């Protein structure tokens, strides 16, 4: 009897975000006839995929007990430098491949810088990434003279604009990476270790886990996801604004993770939750637009949803 009650409670905890998504989906379908149109749904998914991909990496960082505030600035820096690399190599198919590889490596490198200062320098993640957030943005502005990075390639936009089987490429990547990371989190040694480190670092250390390495890898992973997102975004517009690109991405990414049920204190979380969290945020934005709510008020709603999600988490604990 008691185990049944326990199970019921656990299930509600586990599927809370999914439940919220379903409710939101039904409400939206009733509120607007356009909501359920395929084009609108694909549009929402495409919009959430940029910060959603970053949120996937962020999930590892937050479960490990950390945070990364630098992802927005990092997006701009990587996107800008990828375009510069692309132009340098001439804009052909080889140039695109080289620029993408360069971007991915750069992302992992920038993530590693965060991770190394946090683990070797023993500085709080909040402080380190607050610092690099300023540094990465300032460097982006400096390189572009506060202007725009413009690609000269005709081929590059095909990546960000393209479709595969009727679904936008960023959406494929979002779900593909979510599936891959889900397996890593749930079924590999690394995933188990991330949870262990986040739930009790001392126990993890006594249990022969290389705590520093686990945390460092989490920041490298988020750097990688930032690079994927930066490449997709710069490719979609074939250009990138040094001052506007990636602004508030850290907010959206962290919000998606938290709404998805990952504990801000670390230790527990899920990839599917993060995907759901990102989509919830996307639907809310979409509905506010369709209902004609001022875009300036959308931030208020987002803020309320984040705080609400954490309040619910607190109640459960």
């Amino acid at each position: 009897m008691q185990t049944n009650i326990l199970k019921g409670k656990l299930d509600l905890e586990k599927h809370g975000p999914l439940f919220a998504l379903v409710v939101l989906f039904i409400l939206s379908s009733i509120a607007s006839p356009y909501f359920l149109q395929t084009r609108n749904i694909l549009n929402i998914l495409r919009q959430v995929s940029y910060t959603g991909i970053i949120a996937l990496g962020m999930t590892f960082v937050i479960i490990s007990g950390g945070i990364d505030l630098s992802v927005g600035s990092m997006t701009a820096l990587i996107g800008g430098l990828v375009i510069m690399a692309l132009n340098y190599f001439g804009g052909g198919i080889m140039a695109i491949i080289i620029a993408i590889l360069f971007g991915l490596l750069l992302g992992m490198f920038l993530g590693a810088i965060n991770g190394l200062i946090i683990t070797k320098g023993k500085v709080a993640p909040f402080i380190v990434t607050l610092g690099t957030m300023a540094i990465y943005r300032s460097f982006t502005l400096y390189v572009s003279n506060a202007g725009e990075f413009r690609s000269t390639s005709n081929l590059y936009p095909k990546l960000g604009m393209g479709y595969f089987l009727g679904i936008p490429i960023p959406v494929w990547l979002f779900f593909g990476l979510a599936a891959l990371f889900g397996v890593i989190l749930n079924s590999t040694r690394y995933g188990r270790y991330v949870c262990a480190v986040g739930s009790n670092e001392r126990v993890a250390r006594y249990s022969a886990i290389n705590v520093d390495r686990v945390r460092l890898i989490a920041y490298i992973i988020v750097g990688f996801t930032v690079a994927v997102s930066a490449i997709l975004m710069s490719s979609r517009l074939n250009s990138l604004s040094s001052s506007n690109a990636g602004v508030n991405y850290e907010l959206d990414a962290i919000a998606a993770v938290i709404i998805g049920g990952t504990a801000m204190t670390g230790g527990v979380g899920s990839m599917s939750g993060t995907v759901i969290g990102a989509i919830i945020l996307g639907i809310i934005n979409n509905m506010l637009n369709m209902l004609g709510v001022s875009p300036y008020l959308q931030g208020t709603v987002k803020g309320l949803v984040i705080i609400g999600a954490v309040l619910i988490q607190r109640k459960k604990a």
Partner: protein
Amino acid sequence: MKPDQVLVKTVGISKSFSGVTVLDNINVEILQGEILGIIGENGAGKSTFIKILNGTYTPSEGRVFFAGSPVHIRDTSVAKRLGISTIPQEFNLINHLSVYENIFLGKELVKGNRLLDKQQMKEKTSELLRELDTDIPPDAKLQDLSVAQKQMVEIAKAIAYDSRLLIMDEPTTVLTQHEIDILFNLMQRLKEKGVTIIYISHKLREVKRICDRVIILRDGQFISLDPTDALDEQEMARRMVGRELTQIFPPKIQPQANAVLQVRNLSVSGLLHDISFDLRKGEILGFSGLIGAGRTELAEALIGIHPITSGQIMINGKTQVISSPIDAVNNGIAYLSEDRQGTGVLTSFDVASNVTLVSLNEYCKPLIDRKKEKAQTEEYIKAFNIRTPSTRTLLEYLSGGNQQKVSLAKSLDPKPEIFIIDEPTRGIDVNAKKEVYYFIHELVKTGISCILISSEMEEILGLCNRVVVMREGRVTGILEADEMSEAEIMFYATGLKEGA
């Protein structure tokens, strides 16, 4: 006031925590102006007794009379108002405040305009410190002081308020002989002024020297209250431990002659000094000592938590560098922590994930083989009789004893050769203890060598082939089976005897 007037009288004081009685029916009279020693083994109830007097705990039963009238000391502020102050075992000072700010914390002196009267506070602090014969400047920040200086500040803080009863819990552990002499002088002067002092110490020689009378507690029971003149130190030690061994121990197995672990001149800066010992194959080697002797620190040094500053560790005759728990596991050393939730198990993980946490590599190919994980965990659940609904139940839903068994399974799953067990029976009942003893016996039968850290003498004597006694980060004696007795161990642990 007459010198022999009773200041504190306890009538039938008892204290229990979740059903476990830690202090049982204590009736004592503490006289005005005496220095009263309280001695006993770890867990004898000394700290509980004084925590009842200073309002940290309220007694489960019994009453306290202070200066003739019944009092209900429900919290520390009541104790303060009565004039009871405590010099705690652990410092209660704020590191980034200055000496005088610490001394007057919560009792700041103010001028007529409500601003702090720093000048007067500093002067008073200087006065207090002069009385203690130390030259600590009142302006110094606490964090810049040595441990001994901090102790002096703590003492100054306690006597800054006009105390009638001053409780000192192990105040001399960090002091040098010179500082101890100053402290004893001061205690003498306070006594002449009519202040009553309760003095808790493991150092019997000091108790003999400074105290007028001494209370001996054992397992929460009152054993005796006698003038210190009537007891010698040996008798004190005997009364502290005197117990019959009950038949709950498995037969001892003779270990093999070869050493699996040899520790030579091992030191850890500030914690351990020049530790040497051998662990033979199939041996249960006991580690005895009082709290703060450095036994857990030694275990942590052996598994690479504390960096070793000098000395070497040899395993099966080969010198090994162990600089992290990963190295320890690779060298076949496992550790069962005394601090289960702090360093032992993850309460937010399920049973199976805890069991395989250290040995996870064995379950990866490269994805975690959940079937194998489950099967192995089920074996442990059967072998150790772990009560859990399933292998995937979160540990926070299990009782303390069952969590302890999961912790045990987790340590043993990597198949260690050397198993360090730190206080495995703390806070569990006699039957569970017996289970643990027979379990260790079975382990040794399979050829695992054990280091058993325990504060329970009975356990050390009943299980171990030999015992290493530690005191203040050093090995003071290694006793062979025929030399082992409670009194003998206590002599080495308290510093009455030294040298193997």
